[in-house]
């Protein structure tokens, strides 16, 4: 990995160590007088940054001018939204802080969607923006926007730096905030004059005060004891594993809890990878497009153990009917999440891994066989009649593509999805055994995320096989980053799941708006030709029989490769719990699906 750094303190490091990370670095030169621009890069280098994603402009030019003196690689994006998503993808793949940089005004506003995406999924990124000189700040000077004001609600914190001597400290503080507690994006806006003027630079002296954990974190003896009692006495327990499993590096602890007490595990979309899909106790994804048996298990459960998840509305369905029979234990690092959507019986507010380390000694072996058997039985027919198992009739379903991709990559690739039906099919049919192998925008659901985020992921993990899975709609939102892939000579495979529609919206129109397909049919360019125009080879795939050869071709190509999968146009994601319905009120794949393969098809 190109990256180094504190990422690993989270996953492998000492649990007791502060998460603040990157404390000491080798390049602590004695204090020197540097320009603000130099201080920027020196501080980033000191924080362990090796790659940044950005786009230049007037207000950030002093910084760009100084870049050549520092061992940091700058990736030129095609749109600043891409820069923020790349930093985000980098952070998700590596566990470290990703960095994006942009100029003032339009450069800064273009970052906003990417920042909000990182905010809603708690992803540590630091965004640097230039701003006009402090003398004209607030005067509507050319390309001036109040970016700290604009991003206030979508950042964990932001800084406006107009004095060179404040810069190093603000940046180091930004990194600390981004990666500590519940991680998130931080923006540092630097006026042009603060980049140009000089100040004494002392990396060590710019170190922020020790990170102060949220004062309302609370794991009490009585809570641990109550949780242990509930687990011991439960007949139908389910673990709900969320993104926090990865963020806190608690994969082993969750697994130990599940195995020791024989408790099945349901995953949120962002929890995928935190518990191996191939594990016998893994139920799969819960929620709106979760497997029927997972949602049924939750509705029937007498105990839910929520680990690093926040009971999002896509996961709970109608709250008044959510898991009515279950006691709830919530282990969560953010006190503001406790009792927000779902009232819980025991709240253990702290870092998931640390809490589980405290809880595990109190957990004894348990016989969970009866409950597991009940759940297994409820999978029954559904699992067998699954579309991926149907004989090839010539139709190409997205499910086939996901299934074959999973099979052929051995489930080992880093998959970066966009948002829509294909995203849900990926979550259903590509089985992830390892953390940080599914990179997807969950909370904000940002179309256009996949391609740039995959570029970030590839920089974080250059040795890994990286696949983009995007819809025909979302792919076009950020397709300009194909040129970035070429400029940076990246080996990224791209699968466009081309159904000719804004599919997920079309599905809602089909179910809830009387098939009024308003503004969802989509004319697209020939994606293979588009790739070709960038010098990226590719091919179209129309039948299931072609999938394997196409995936082989992509994987063995030396550089990037694009596959345009022309799939069933009006297929829908099943099961589906309509927004606002209860978890058990799901829409199933119709028995006589007009799309379903039949023997006489071809």
């Amino acid at each position: 990995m190109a990256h180094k750094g504190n990422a690993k303190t989270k996953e492998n490091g000492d649990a007791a160590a502060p998460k603040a990370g990157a404390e000491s670095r080798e390049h602590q030169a004695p204090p020197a007088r540097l320009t603000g621009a130099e201080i920027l890069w020196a501080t980033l280098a000191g924080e362990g940054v090796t790659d940044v994603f950005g786009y230049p402009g007037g207000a950030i030019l002093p910084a760009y001018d100084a870049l050549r003196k520092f061992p940091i690689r700058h990736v030129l994006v095609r749109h600043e939204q891409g820069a923020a998503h790349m930093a985000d993808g980098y952070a998700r793949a590596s566990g470290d802080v990703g960095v994006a940089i942009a100029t003032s005004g339009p450069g800064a506003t273009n970052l906003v969607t990417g920042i909000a995406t990182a905010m809603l999924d708690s992803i540590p990124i630091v965004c640097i923006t230039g701003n006009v000189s402090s003398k004209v700040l607030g005067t509507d000077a050319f390309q001036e926007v109040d970016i700290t004001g604009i991003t206030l609600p979508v950042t964990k914190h932001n800084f406006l730096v107009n004095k060179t001597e404040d810069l190093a400290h603000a940046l180091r503080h930004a990194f600390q905030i981004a990666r500590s507690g519940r991680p998130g994006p931080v923006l540092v806006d630097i006026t042009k004059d603060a980049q140009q003027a000089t100040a004494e630079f002392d990396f060590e002296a710019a170190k922020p005060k020790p990170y102060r954990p949220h004062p309302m974190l609370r794991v009490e003896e009585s809570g641990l004891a109550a949780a242990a009692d509930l687990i011991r006495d439960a007949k139908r327990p389910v673990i709900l594993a969320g993104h926090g499993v990865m963020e806190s590096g608690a994969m082993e602890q969750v697994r130990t809890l599940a195995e020791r007490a024989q408790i099945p595990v349901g995953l949120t979309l962002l929890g995928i990878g935190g518990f191996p899909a191939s594990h016998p106790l893994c139920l799969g994804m819960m929620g709106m497009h979760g497997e029927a048996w997972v949602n049924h298990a939750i509705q029937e459960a007498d105990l839910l153990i929520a680990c690093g998840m926040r009971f999002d509305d896509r996961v709970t369905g109608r709250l008044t009917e959510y898991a009515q029979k279950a006691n709830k234990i919530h282990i969560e690092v953010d006190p503001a999440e406790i009792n927000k959507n779902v009232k819980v019986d025991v709240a253990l507010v702290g870092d998931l891994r640390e809490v589980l380390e405290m809880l595990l000694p109190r957990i004894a072996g348990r016989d969970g066989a009866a409950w597991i058997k009940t759940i297994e039985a409820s999978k029954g027919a559904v699992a067998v009649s699954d579309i991926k198992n149907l004989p090839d009739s010539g139709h190409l379903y997205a499910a086939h593509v996901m299934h074959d991709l999973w099979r052929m990559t051995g489930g080992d690739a880093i998959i970066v999805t966009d948002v829509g039906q294909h995203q849900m099919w990926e979550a259903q049919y590509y089985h992830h055994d390892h953390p940080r192998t599914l990179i997807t925008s969950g909370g904000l659901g940002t179309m256009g995320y996949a391609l740039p985020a995959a570029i970030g992921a590839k920089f974080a993990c250059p040795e890994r096989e990286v696949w983009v899975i995007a819809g025909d709609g979302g792919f076009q939102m950020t397709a300009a980053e194909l040129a970035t892939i070429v400029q940076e000579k990246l080996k990224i495979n791209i699968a466009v799941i081309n159904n000719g529609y804004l599919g997920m919206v079309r599905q809602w129109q089909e179910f809830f708006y009387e098939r009024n397909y308003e503004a969802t049919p989509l004319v697209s360019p020939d994606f293979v030709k588009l790739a070709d125009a960038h010098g990226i080879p590719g091919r179209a795939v129309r039948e299931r029989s072609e999938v394997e050869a196409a995936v082989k071709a992509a994987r063995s190509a030396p550089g990037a490769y694009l596959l345009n999968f022309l799939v069933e146009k009006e297929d829908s994601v099943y099961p589906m719990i309509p927004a606002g319905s209860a978890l058990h009120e799901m829409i199933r794949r119709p028995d006589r699906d007009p799309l379903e393969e039949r023997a006489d098809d071809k």
Partner: protein
Amino acid sequence: MLHTFVAYVEDKPGVLTRVASLFRRLNINIISLTVGRSEREGLSRMTIVCEASAEAGHRIRASLFKLENVVDVDDIAQAPSVTRELALIKVAATPQTRGRIFDLVEVFRARIVDLTSESLMIEMTGVESKIEGLIEVLREDEGRILEICRSGKMTMRRGHHVSSVERAMGVSSGEAEAAEEVPEDDVTTPIE
């Protein structure tokens, strides 16, 4: 229900926006907000009064703590405390009509702090209801009140109280917990 939060925040640009933005986002109206220097170097003290559901209190406090510039937050809730508001009220009064207002000021234990031939200014400190009472009586005479400036509520817990921050910083939890619960007889005699 009415919530009163006392927050210690860094005395830096933009901090008020961050705090206010949190309430704006929840679509909670801030009924009153006072800010000023505190006993702690570099920290301002805010008293924020708002109307929100009982359950919202925990979340607002937890969310306030998530703001980087917020150092301490106390949810006063029903705890024994003293709340005061300051009001400056300018009323029209000539030498002929002053006498009646002097009497009122006396009754309400307020003070006259400025006097001209056409107007006078009343300064009054007290609980909200007392200030409202004075304003109401003054309003009985149409056109008499020229200006009202009210500070909003300032609140302080009664007795000795250990902040959650000190607790987080290592005052042993038993001690701090005990200190938090102000025993009834420890409460300083209420003045009214």
